[in-house]
């Protein structure tokens, strides 16, 4: 067994499935929380020897919607980690939850704020109010968390540029160590996309402005734009996620969870009933060297630090790279490859240009 540095655990339970969500979630299965934690712990035991890891991330779903005793039972069984993050929805953060998480060794919380506009929260079908976000933030601080992240979403049907500006302002005012700002991704064919089709198209035309505004506002407030959609105070990058972007192996546990281990990517069954029975039905994808190299480029170029090119040259399209350099989008430093500021705004297209 390899030395696993990054561990992901998926907790699928939610009070309600938001219209735009495309994660593996489960609602109305509250009686299964205990059984699910059992299953998770079983898989953990099968896959990991218990030795310390660098980072652990509990994602969902709504991890903090899980019955608190079950959540705590899980947390206490985890190996030690330098960074232990839990995702939380604001309305679930009671003073008790905040204290218990902290006591169980959680040292980072990622809070799904999304927006501070009540009507936009309704469009997203979020349960929290703007006040919930602020009080959750306060409670986490009171419990002693010094590493908090806020998630924001922009391009929401009905959103105006002023409302985005207001969201950014309120997020900054709370002073989180980390902010993730995502463009709303509406998957074709989902009920959300069908319900908001025309408005989503209008929003799509605004995305360039929104993205520029997000980057300008947050960097203006002293945040480091260290990844395409992520901003942090110095020294407060999301270490767990950094593991993905640096192309490291990770072990994912839980229903629908994905692992990448020694050139093999696998996904557990997304069906809760099966998972609870220990039937993982893993979908396996073998990653050959070329594929891994392309992924390294794709992920590494999302970061603000130059990407070490060792072993990656052959995955590069030399002509494409030369073009990207001529256009002032990329800098080939020989040992490393970096995107310029403008290159980062066009990161997807530049990567497609550069990759062989």
């Amino acid at each position, binding site marked *: 067994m390899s030395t696993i540095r990054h561990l*992901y655990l998926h907790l699928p339970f939610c009070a309600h499935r938001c219209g735009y969500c495309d*994660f593996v979630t489960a609602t109305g299965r509250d009686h299964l929380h205990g059984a699910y934690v059992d299953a998770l712990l079983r898989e953990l035991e099968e896959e990991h020897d218990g030795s310390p890891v660098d980072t652990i991330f509990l994602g969902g779903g709504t991890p903090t919607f899980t019955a608190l005793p079950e959540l705590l039972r899980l947390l206490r069984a985890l190996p030690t980690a330098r960074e232990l993050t839990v995702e939380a929805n604001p309305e679930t953060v009671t003073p008790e939850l905040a204290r218990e998480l902290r006591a169980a060794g959680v040292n980072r919380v990622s809070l799904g704020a999304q927006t501070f506009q009540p009507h936009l929260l309704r469009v997203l079908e979020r349960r929290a109010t703007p006040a919930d976000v602020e009080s959750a933030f306060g409670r986490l601080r009171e419990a002693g968390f010094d590493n908090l992240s806020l998630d924001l979403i922009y391009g929401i049907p009905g959103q105006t540029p002023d409302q985005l500006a207001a969201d950014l302002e309120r997020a900054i005012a709370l002073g989180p160590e980390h902010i*993730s700002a*995502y*463009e*709303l*991704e509406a998957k074709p064919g989902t009920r959300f996309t069908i319900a908001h089709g025309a408005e989503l198209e209008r929003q799509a035309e605004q*995305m*360039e402005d929104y*993205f*520029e505004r997000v980057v300008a506002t947050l960097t203006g407030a002293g945040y480091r734009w260290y990844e*395409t*959609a992520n901003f942090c105070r110095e020294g407060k990058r999301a270490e767990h*996620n950094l593991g*993905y*972007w640096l192309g490291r192996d*990770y072990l*994912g546990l839980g229903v*629908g*969870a*994905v*692992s*990448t281990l020694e050139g093999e*990517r696998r*996904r557990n069954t997304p069906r809760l009933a099966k998972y609870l029975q220990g039937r993982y039905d893993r979908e396996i*994808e073998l990653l050959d060297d070329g*594929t891994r190299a*392309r*992924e390294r480029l*794709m*992920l590494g170029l*999302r970061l603000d630090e130059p990407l070490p090119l060792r072993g990656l040259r052959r995955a590069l399209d030399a002509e494409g790279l030369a*073009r*990207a350099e*001529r*256009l002032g*989008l990329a800098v080939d430093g020989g040992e490393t490859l970096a995107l310029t500021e403008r290159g*980062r*705004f*066009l*990161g*997807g*297209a*530049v*990567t*497609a*240009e550069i*990759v062989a």
Partner: protein
Amino acid sequence: MDQARIRNFSIIAHIDHGKSTLADRILELTEAVSAREMREQVLDTMELERERGITIKAQAVRVPWKGHELNLIDTPGHVDFTYEVSRSLQACEGALLVVDAAQGIEAQTLANAYLAIENGLEIVPVANKIDLPAADPDATAVEVADLLGDDPARVLRISAKTGDGVADVLDAIVERMPAPDGDPEAPARALVFDSSYDQYRGVLAFVRVVDGSFATREGLRTMATDTRFDAEELGVFSPAMTPVEQLSVGEVGYVVTGLKDVSSLRVGDTLTSVRRPAEKALPGYKDVKPMVFAGLFPTDSDDYPELRDALERLKLNDAALVYEPETSQALGFGFRCGFLGLLHMEIVRERLEREFDLDLLVTAPNVAYRVKEKDGDLVEVHNPSEFPREIEEVEEPYVAASIIVPKEHVGAVMELNNDRRGTFGKLEYLSPERVHLTYELPLAEIVLDYYDQLKSRTRGYASFDYDVAGFKPGELVRVDVLVGGEPVDALSLIVHRQFAYDRGRLLVDRLREEIPRQMFDIPIQAAIGSRVIARETVKAKRKDVLAKCYGGDITRKRKLLEKQKAGKKRMKQVGSVEVPQEAFLAVLNIGQGQKS
């Protein structure tokens, strides 16, 4: 066969007026073909011809009738093949002029009828389809008799479909048409009125013996191109190929030449014997030059070798088709092809796509230009991208166009012709309802969407025919299209100065819609020389990122990236701009319209 008992004739008819059906009935009636053996229309050999209802290549069939030998020489039915038609007609003494009694005379019939009259042929007029409820044989007879200066009573009334009156047609051929009048003792001369290629036997020449006679295995030569070969076999079509020892004066048949290249045996050339050659060639030989040109490119550049092979094979049977390799920055490797006209181009394109299963990009067709450069050099230009930028004078081909239309549409036709730089010739009434208009038009103005326009403006009632009538100077300019500052060779065009701005604007607007935004601003310009006449910009995109990417997303995001990369590879590169194939297609389709 006794020369006096030979009759050589053609059938002149508009498409769908019943030429093939009449030919079939003649074959049946003369028992040249049993009903069982008969394919529906024996003379039309190619699938494509059958579908389009036209005949591309002439053939000749010998049928017996009441002690006579009748040779039916089939003529191509379209304007692009005027020269071939004229050679086929020259091989005859008479022609059946078949007119649909429900439709009346059409422009094409008229053109070919004039051609027959010029060739001194005895014309036997026939009103066909008298069985149709809409038929008006009397009115048709008057119209036809008027045209020929004949008596309406002499216009035969038949139904090729039912067979009614067909025997009278055969009798009239024998009675009214003269026998061939060549000299049996003179040195042998034969008119080559068509040729064909057989992969086992080489080039077949279809000939009409004018003087003397030819024998099997005799050494022969063509007088214009001086090609020499031995007559490996002589024969006639009755209708199957039947070898004969000798082809004598007045007879029509084929010669197996063993030649491997149809272009060494030209239609209209004179065949004579090497041992006792004739002194003078038969009149009327022309080296037919293509008038319409277009670039043909495989949609998938990997198909280039297939396209080359396909053109080689088509060329075997089509001496009029010319092509040379062409390299376009935008479209890759392809061929510049020359055609007799638009229909010829369409036929070639369809055969390439259908018989050879090729996907083609065809550039907007252009005509041949004669350019006098500033330094006095004269060049003929077939490709807009080779059109010199500094010119003294340029000449373009004109056609004599003939249009027959119901009188209520005359105004619409005149308006169209004025828009197309036409010069009015004359207007005459063929009947109280139908008008014959003649115009002189630049060929360039009809190679685009003229047919479509004519049809739509006359609700389909106009018929049209043209003949190339020489070159004339014109105010022509070359318009280049530049994408990202780079000229796109495949999109250059030559237009009359008065249309340059509109065409340039149209191209630029269309390209702006079709070229996706890229990582930099892309200026799109239309220019005459260094003067920009239209300009648009595809603005650079400012953002292209995948919103988020974590452990569970990596495979899906990587696949998106790979798809994006594959999409880029399919793009055509103009400088550093990626242009989707569809953009070229959309632009090349401007004004190319649907073909009639």
